[in-house]
């Protein structure tokens, strides 16, 4: 016991993991100390999650050793890892929505008692949460909880099983800025109490603010570590991640405006719950123009996009696509007119997960030859796209679900932004969850499509992104467009005020 301060809490040596052709983790070393927040930084597909999944017992390493508290471990399952006090909070929560918080916590317990006394169990869970400083209501139904709260339940569950080492896989990817701040407070407190935390992330700023140490991974290898991340710049970290100097600058030329490609007039759309989501909305987007929607999520952006795509019925109003009246056209007819759509959910909507990369790239082309399918001629096209966008894949036959998030998004964009075919592009959160390099690449692809003359309507929660890319920014609030400003005409703070409904324009719909 006495030497504990010197022995690292966790020591990974030469861990390797191969998935088929792909060497996901290549002889990675990592040390974790008690009472530290250790950030694992890297691009999508760098091997961060795979490395940590081995520590958490989800994958078995092909080589290398894991030591916890100086003892060599060989985990067969997450349960074994848990017994050695290592737990993981996944990016996608693994909670049963129809059960309450305390029931979910109990489900994770090592030994479930034969008879559960609800009142007492709920009380115990509540007390544990309060002791740990986690704000949760043990009796609430999980389906009623917000994302941030669900995440706290996951954390509570891992801690109540005795975890002293907790891995968090991109915990802020799903959180709003406010929720992220609350999470950081929680994490710092847990660290004070003696937990070792691993934060898997590709967000440079949060890593710099939160972590005591940073380990950077690139292409499956550990390529560097920083002991005092606050002392290094974001550029240094980015350079380590990417392996060369990255320019976060975009090539953005003055738009060459063409005809009106997308015209919306007095559009009204209802949400799934039957409420008015889009209210009397009018907007025009020209060829060669990128219009960004700014707004707090849930103000009708998704419903608007779906209505334009033909996936949701418009109650009233008109949609004009490339000069044709499209209000009554089906989604398929709109696609034929050159409408392209980068959906929010790229894993099940933007792609069919079990189909191959080739088949997924063919989703807009498979009908080219009439009733009969000929994918073989598309193989060359597929290989060109893989090369052009640098998609990391073992080849056209690989199933799409085996691509990492960034590569999957590149696949979707390669298909949706095809120059000759894409005339109107709707893009939802195109860079969500992507690392710095993939983000820059995706943004450049959007600007390139605009340069090729496409009309683009963009909706992203990342306001900086909307401001950086858009020729015009349309501020949405409560299903209406409250302001439209040109690129550079208004700053972040002003737009933020408009987004929350403040300072309404004297004459709705047009800028100063």
């Amino acid at each position, binding site marked *: 016991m006495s030497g504990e301060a010197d022995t690292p809490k966790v020591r990974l040596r030469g861990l390797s993991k191969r998935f088929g052709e792909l060497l996901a983790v290549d002889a990675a070393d990592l040390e974790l100390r008690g009472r530290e927040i250790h950030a694992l930084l890297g691009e999508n597909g760098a091997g961060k999650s795979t490395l940590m999944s081995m520590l958490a017992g989800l994958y*078995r390493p092909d080589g290398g050793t894991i030591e916890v508290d100086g003892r060599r471990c060989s985990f067969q399952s997450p349960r074994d890892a848990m017994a050695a006090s290592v737990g993981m909070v996944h990016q996608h929560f693994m909670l049963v929505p129809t059960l309450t918080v305390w029931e979910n916590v109990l489900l994770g317990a090592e030994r479930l008692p034969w008879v559960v006394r609800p009142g007492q169990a709920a009380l115990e869970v509540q007390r544990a949460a309060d002791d740990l400083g986690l704000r949760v209501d043990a009796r609430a139904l999980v389906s009623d909880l917000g994302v941030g709260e669900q995440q706290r339940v996951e954390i509570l569950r891992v801690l109540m099983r005795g975890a002293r080492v907790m891995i968090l896989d991109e915990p802020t990817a799903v959180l709003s800025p406010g929720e992220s701040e609350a999470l950081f407070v929680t994490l710092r407190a847990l660290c004070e109490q003696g937990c070792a935390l691993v934060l898997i992330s590709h967000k440079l700023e949060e890593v710099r603010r939160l972590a005591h140490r940073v380990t950077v991974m690139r292409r499956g290898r550990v390529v560097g570590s920083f002991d005092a991340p606050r002392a290094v710049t974001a550029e240094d970290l980015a350079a380590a991640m990417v392996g060369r100097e990255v320019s976060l600058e975009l090539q953005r030329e003055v738009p060459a405006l063409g005809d009106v490609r997308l015209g919306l007039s007095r559009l009204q759309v209802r949400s799934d719950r039957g409420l008015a989501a889009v209210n009397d909305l009018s907007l025009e987007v020209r060829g060669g123009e990128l219009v960004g929607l700014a707004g707090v999520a849930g103000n009708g952006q998704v419903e608007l996009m779906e209505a334009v795509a033909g996936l949701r019925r418009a109650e009233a109003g008109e949609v004009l696509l490339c000069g044709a009246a499209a209000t009554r056209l089906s989604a398929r007819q709109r696609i034929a007119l050159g409408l392209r759509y980068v959906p929010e959910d790229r894993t099940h*909507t933007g792609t*069919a997960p079990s189909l191959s990369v080739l088949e997924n790239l063919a989703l807009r082309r*498979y009908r080219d030859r*009439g009733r*009969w399918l000929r994918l073989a001629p598309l193989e060359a096209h597929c290989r060109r796209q893989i090369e052009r966008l640098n998609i990391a894949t073992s080849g056209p036959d690989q199933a799409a679900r085996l691509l990492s998030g960034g590569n999957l998004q590149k696949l979707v964009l390669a298909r949706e932004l095809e120059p000759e075919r894409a005339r109107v592009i709707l893009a939802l959160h195109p860079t969500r969850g992507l690392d710095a390099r993939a983000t820059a690449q995706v943004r450049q692809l959007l600007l390139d499509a605009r340069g090729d003359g496409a009309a683009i309507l963009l909706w992203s929660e990342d306001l900086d992104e909307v401001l950086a890319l858009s020729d015009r920014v349309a501020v949405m609030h409560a299903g209406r467009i409250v302001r439209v400003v040109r690129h550079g005409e208004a700053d972040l703070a002003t737009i933020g005020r408009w987004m929350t409904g403040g300072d309404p324009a004297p004459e709705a719909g047009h800028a100063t």
Partner: protein
Amino acid sequence: MRLELRPRLYVSPARSALSTAASVVVALVLGGLLLWAAGVDPLAAYRAIFDASLLGGAYALSDTTVKTIPLLLCGLGCALAFRARLWNVGAEGQLLLGAWAATGVASFWLPAASLPSPLVLLLMGIAAVVAGALWAGIAGALRAHLEVNEIISTLMLVYVAQKLINYFVFGAWSEGGFPLTPLFPESAHLPRLADWAERFPSLSGLTAHLGIVVGLLACGLVWLLLKRSVWGFELRVLGDSPPAARYIGLSVPRRMLATMLISGGLAGLAGMLEVAGVVHRLQDRFSPGYGFVAIAVAWLGRLNPWGVLLGAFLFAALLVGAKEVQPGGISMMLQGVVMLTVVAGDFLLRYEVRRLEERTGA
């Protein structure tokens, strides 16, 4: 020794076929153990089964072919629906309706005796396809538009179909109070090999009928549809991810309904071939549950049309052969064991089992 399971990321078609073949072999071994435990000599039993169904010369093969036909068509119907993740488990009901409609055309609704045989057979086929399709279409429409679970609706419709057939067989169409309808006129009989016995004496007594040609054609068509057509590609997208299907502009309810119609139509055709090729009338319990066995056949064939053909042939051989051995439930038992080993084999396809070297700490 400790074992480890790891998911396979890629399963090649060859490995998949090999796994299925191995499953069947394992099933025969397990079935042999069960037979032995029941006091039967397994080798003798298997010899009797395969003599009667495969190795016993032309008669045996002909009998097996006859049973292959309905299993093949129903199996194709199931496989097509399963590809779209529509669980049509009611092929039996669709088969019954098909047989019913074919009987109506042959014996009651048209003066079939005075019409040319090809025309009668064609009309019977069309009627059967339409009837089977509509029967499946009820469940399809309920699923597509009201989200009624098709597993339950298709299964329940089997029982409705059985009662409906009973009404006609015992009542409205009954011949002299017996549970069967009058024999079809000659023009409504599918040609059999035995029909040419006068010219080729060796064919005498062989009951294999033209239905096998229809079955093989259907097999080829379904393969073409699934593998080579835009429609089949969209079906695979739908089966893999309904939101993605919507996203590429597919009308999901319409496609679900269409898939169920085709699936039911194939099963209905099986019913027509059975009455026109084998029994030549509609009678009580003419199907020993072909539509249910077909579900297993579809899985055994891994939802691939040519695989379904092999699966149908194997199960037909079991059905034919098991009649020759005692106790009588052997065929059912073997079918069950095959199903279990195929499902277990599926697990081994998805996961790799590796032996762990026990490593001692350094």
